[in-house]
């Protein structure tokens, strides 16, 4: 039985007791997937778990407060769920997790840039073991999966769900923590270059808040201080400084809570590499608090607690 069929069978067994199960299906064309909310057998038939199925179902978890739902989760998604549980934002008995041992998902941005221009109509996509075969205007283009794998998947240390009620697929051997060369290269740049980079990049931001709303850990959403007039943290001015202020709010509120699912960067319509900020902050959190959000149950986010003697905070003397 294929993994998909195995998964369908597992979901089928739970469907009656759940409000819905969140998975994926094909989106507006064969190259794009979209979240699927499975409520009945015909919904279930449309389920897809290809590497195109990228969305983090944990994004929707808090929206179903009080209802019991199922979610198909990859490794990174399960971290989001664990962090939500740790912060008591969802309840364990209200979620059934169908875990997928994951070999990585694609980056649509990379697919797009792998093609010389807008692709036009996508007629068909065939997913091989290590490549995507895309049919455009009758012509087949092949892209290696490895070349369009999302950044987070290239360095993923947790491909298998850390929490699941049903586990589908073969578990991976444990993987070392890795860093992205591009991340390191950016971090190593001089301040002036980084500053200019963010100035320019932030001038592209339209403050649509897709990064915020897609973030599974952003639970304020409707009450985000970026959009409120009381408290009034930000002007509605769409300028680099104000846009960056919002990103700083997001980073600040995610300190020690970000599970690195990469949804913010994926959702950004103008391709702002937000994960540069996330990964850097997470690295600091790891260094100072030895904490990685969503990797184990019953951990308090580091900024919500303290130690009288902080072993790894060296206070600067004067």
């Amino acid at each position, binding site marked *: 039985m294929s993994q998909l069929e195995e998964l369908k069978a597992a979901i089928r067994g739970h469907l009656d007791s759940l409000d819905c199960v969140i998975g994926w299906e094909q989106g507006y064309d064969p190259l794009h997937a979209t979240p699927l909310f499975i409520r009945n057998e015909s919904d279930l038939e449309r389920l897809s778990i290809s590497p195109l199925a990228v969305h983090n179902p944990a994004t929707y978890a808090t929206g179903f407060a009080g209802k019991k739902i199922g979610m198909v989760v990859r490794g990174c998604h399960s971290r989001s769920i664990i962090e939500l549980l740790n912060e008591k934002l969802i309840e364990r008995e209200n979620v059934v997790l169908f875990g997928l041992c994951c070999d990585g998902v694609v980056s649509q941005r990379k697919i797009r840039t792998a093609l010389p221009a807008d692709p036009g109509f996508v007629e068909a996509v065939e997913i091989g073991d290590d490549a995507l075969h895309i049919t455009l205007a009758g012509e087949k283009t092949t892209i290696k999966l490895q070349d369009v794998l999302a950044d987070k998947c290239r360095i993923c240390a947790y491909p298998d769900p850390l929490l699941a009620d049903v586990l589908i697929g073969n578990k991976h051997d444990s993987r070392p923590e890795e860093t992205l060369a591009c991340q390191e290269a950016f971090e190593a740049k001089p301040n002036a270059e980084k500053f200019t980079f963010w100035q320019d990049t932030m001038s592209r931001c339209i403050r649509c808040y897709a990064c915020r*709303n897609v973030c599974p850990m952003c639970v304020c959403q409707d*009450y985000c201080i970026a959009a409120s007039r009381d408290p009034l943290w930000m002007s509605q001015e769409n300028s680099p400084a104000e846009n960056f202020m919002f990103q700083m709010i997001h980073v600040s509120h995610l300190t020690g809570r970000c599970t690195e699912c990469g949804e913010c960067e994926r959702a950004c319509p103008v391709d702002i590499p937000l994960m540069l900020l996330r990964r850097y902050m997470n690295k600091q959190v790891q260094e100072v608090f030895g904490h990685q959000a969503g990797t184990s149950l019953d951990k308090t986010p580091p900024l919500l607690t303290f130690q009288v003697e902080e072993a790894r905070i060296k206070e600067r003397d004067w």
Partner: protein
Amino acid sequence: MERFITEANLQQFAATLAGKKHVLAPVASGGTTCFRRLVPGMRLDFSRMAVISPKDATFPRNETLLLVQRYVEESGKKLELKEQLPEGECIVIGSRPCGARGKLIFDPVYETEAIKDPYYLRRRDNTLFITLSCDRPESTCFCHSVGSNPADGTGSDVLLTAVEGGFFARAITPKGEELLADALFEEAGTRAEEAAAKQTKARELMGQAHDFSSAAAKLLERFDDMGFWQAQSNKCISCGACTYMCPTCYCFNITDDEAGLVSRRLRSWDNCMSHTFTLEGSGHNPRGTKAHRLKNRVGHKFSYYPDLHASQIACCGCGRCIKQCPAGVDIRQVVMAAQEYVDER
């Protein structure tokens, strides 16, 4: 007037214009193509449809309506208040027909008997569009279903069509003719036919248009059916990507900023998918859930606006909202679901 311009000359034409005027054009930066103010030295990127529409030209994301400065003089305290009406001409190069045509949706709202928005009108009247017709329509494109086509010149001053070695240019307005008088444009020769063939092919690629004519009434029928809207909005994350990207969304917010001795009244884009859009002072929100908000967005474009304005659908079919939606919400599917809805009871 029909002319031809080579790709290199078009780049130069744009650069020269940019030295003199405010030019908005699609530019690739940081891996994405956006309209931004062209600075001599930048290159136009025609390979992709710009992520954000050229709406900024006529309806900028930010607009200072007035500035207030406080100061003290010998004679006592002073307060200076300056209205900031937009000045200067703007030229958009490389908009697509959908984007250029989309701005027409604004007119019935901002120029009525009762209300004339001076900021909008000044910008509209001082902006020229040099539009590029589409030759590779995408899976998300549906301009043909909302009364347009990939070579629609409506709302544009010049329409460019890519032909061998450059672009065939056709002036649509007298101002467009003035632009084409530039020496960089050459005789069109036989390129008119080549362009026409390209345009026809592009239209054919789009296939059968969907008939949205029943949408207005069908959407109204579903107005009170919140179950329908909840199902449709399941995956929506209630962000503003769709509205900010949309060439036809014209909602704005006005906020006053003040800091110390300076204050400012700012007009900025607003977003009906946001909770705060309809949040009332009392704390009550008539559109408290994303289902309410999606209903409004779709309803407004395909039902309420057409009802008020000669059946004109407030959507230009550019597909940006579909393509850029982080959750893959497809407005076509939502409208069709309402059109095809069968009451099972």
